[in-house]
């Protein structure tokens, strides 16, 4: 088995896994998108290795494999930054929800006391 078929097989597995996760709603499309794109790109480069050689000539990288590594690094960096931003967003949302819960809890407590205080008997209204 050549390295190309190995790479292609790996990518097919990745795409299949992502598709499965998307289908079962365990991952959202906005996160899967970049992985899908990456897998497809690797499949293309795996099928047509001349493409990587041609592209490295265009951008002036001497060894094509270094271009592939550099691109992989950039993609991973982009994913990490996207996830950091997403986590920050989630934290902000959690914070807002926590504040809202505290405010509601106090309001509920007030209402419960209001119902009890006018008469001590539990009224069924």
């Amino acid at each position: 088995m050549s390295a190309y078929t190995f790479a292609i097989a790996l990518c097919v597995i990745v795409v299949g896994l992502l598709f499965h996760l998307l289908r079962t709603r365990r991952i959202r499309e906005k996160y899967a998108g970049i992985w899908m794109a990456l897998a497809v790109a690797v499949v293309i480069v795996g099928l047509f290795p001349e493409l990587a050689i041609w592209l490295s000539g265009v951008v002036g990288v001497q060894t094509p494999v270094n271009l592939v590594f550099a691109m992989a690094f950039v993609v991973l960096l982009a994913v990490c930054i996207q996830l950091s931003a997403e986590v920050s967003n989630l934290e902000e949302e959690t914070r807002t929800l926590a504040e809202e819960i505290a405010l509601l809890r106090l309001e509920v407590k007030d209402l419960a006391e209001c119902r009890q205080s006018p008469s001590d008997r539990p009224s069924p209204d």
Partner: protein
Amino acid sequence: MPQFAQSRLLVIIPAWNEQETLGDVIREVRLALPDAHVLVVNDGSTDRTSEVATEASARVLDLPINLGVGGAMRAGYTYAFRQGFDRTVQLDADGQHDPAAVWDLLRAMDSEHADIVIGARFAGVGDYTVRGPRKWSMRLLSVVLSRVAGTRLTDTTSGFKACNRPAIRLFASNYPAEYLGDTIESLVIAARAGLRVRQVGVEMRPRAGGRPSHSPVKAAVFLIRALLALVIALSRPNEPVAIEGVSA
């Protein structure tokens, strides 16, 4: 939204595991400001902070998780905004701030038509001092923030602050939870929104627990994080100010 507020001043005390000092602080506030409402924002404490506050007959906002001072204060400002309070005073739960000094803050707010009044530790009153790198970083912060706010501010990291209705409205929607966001960045946000910031000197009492650190490493970390907070706050795009009547 029903208006429960008869009196118009709300004292907000953010508290995180402050069961030792909180009860006395609330009782002192009640003595010094009999008409004020007291709201303790329990910032996910694991001790009896919430019970102590309830026993001292303060209103308690129990945050289910620890959000830091910024998160606690935004919850407090949201409460103040929705309940229709005209003014708030933020007070530390460790007994550092003298509740009697709240009058100085409110008087300054009236006489100088300020929206936010900071109780400053280094404005000639009291003998609170810090030394070394920490002092330099605080000096630098006050120089920059004085320029931003257009007034002389000597103590920008003070947690003793009075706010009026426009400031409450602003902070209910926009109060950062970042490190130092409750002090440095909130001042930048307020100044950017066109609010008048002023300060009065207040005497600080020694904290009931713990001394301010004088370790040079910690001071350096403080300086770097403070500068980062400042640079980011200053470079942030202006956010639209919420309009009264629209729920925050």
